[in-house]
């Protein structure tokens, strides 16, 4: 069955520290991969996506993610976290083709300490 796992439900980091959020997927073929951020009371916003090519992708707000086929992973990173990055982060996958359906992980809540 297709699934996305985010092993960390809650992460706390100090402002200015580096961040890595983990994402593993189970899929028949390499899917399209996405990271979304959800701030309180707001809709989901796309941070970055991977379709093909370079396995290190850059996104908005200084985030990047690395696709590792051998590990079925797509971890999100940021070198220096800002207090405004506190939010919930979702990893998602979609099958290649005319489907559009996103399958989300359960999310990781990021807390930033001053």
């Amino acid at each position, binding site marked *: 069955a297709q699934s996305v796992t985010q092993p960390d439900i809650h992460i706390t980091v100090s402002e200015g520290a580096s961040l890595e959020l983990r994402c593993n997927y189970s899929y028949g073929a390499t899917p399209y991969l996405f990271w979304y951020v959800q701030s309180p009371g707001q809709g989901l916003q796309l941070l970055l996506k991977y379709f093909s090519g370079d396995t290190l992708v850059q996104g908005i707000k200084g985030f990047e993610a690395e696709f590792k086929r051998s590990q079925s992973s797509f971890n999100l990173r940021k070198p220096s976290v800002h207090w405004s990055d506190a939010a919930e982060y979702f990893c998602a996958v*979609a099958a290649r083709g005319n489907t559009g*359906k996103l399958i989300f992980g359960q999310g990781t809540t990021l807390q930033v300490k001053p």
Partner: protein
Amino acid sequence: EAGVAQSPRYKIIEKRQSVAFWCNPISGHATLYWYQQILGQGPKLLIQFQNNGVVDDSQLPKDRFSAERLKGVDSTLKIQPAKLEDSAVYLCASSLGDHSYNEQFFGPGTRLTVL
């Protein structure tokens, strides 16, 4: 450019009552999605429209949930009768087309509480 609009933002109802949510997608977007996000979980697709036709409703509980997009623009999602387990945030999203590489833009959601 205006984003995806949803109303109401919050709704509290008693179980067995009915409720309806409204979504206005971004202008020109042919594909519209309804997702259900239960507290502590990621969003789950309920139904996907391409213009006014249903593409995927495999996870829609059809005995109580219904959705329509009559003119290929606005959409409504209805629950009748509601159950306690329907308490969730209902997210609407839209995209230019139904290919997976089309970015989905999400509305702010409707938070439903069923008492």
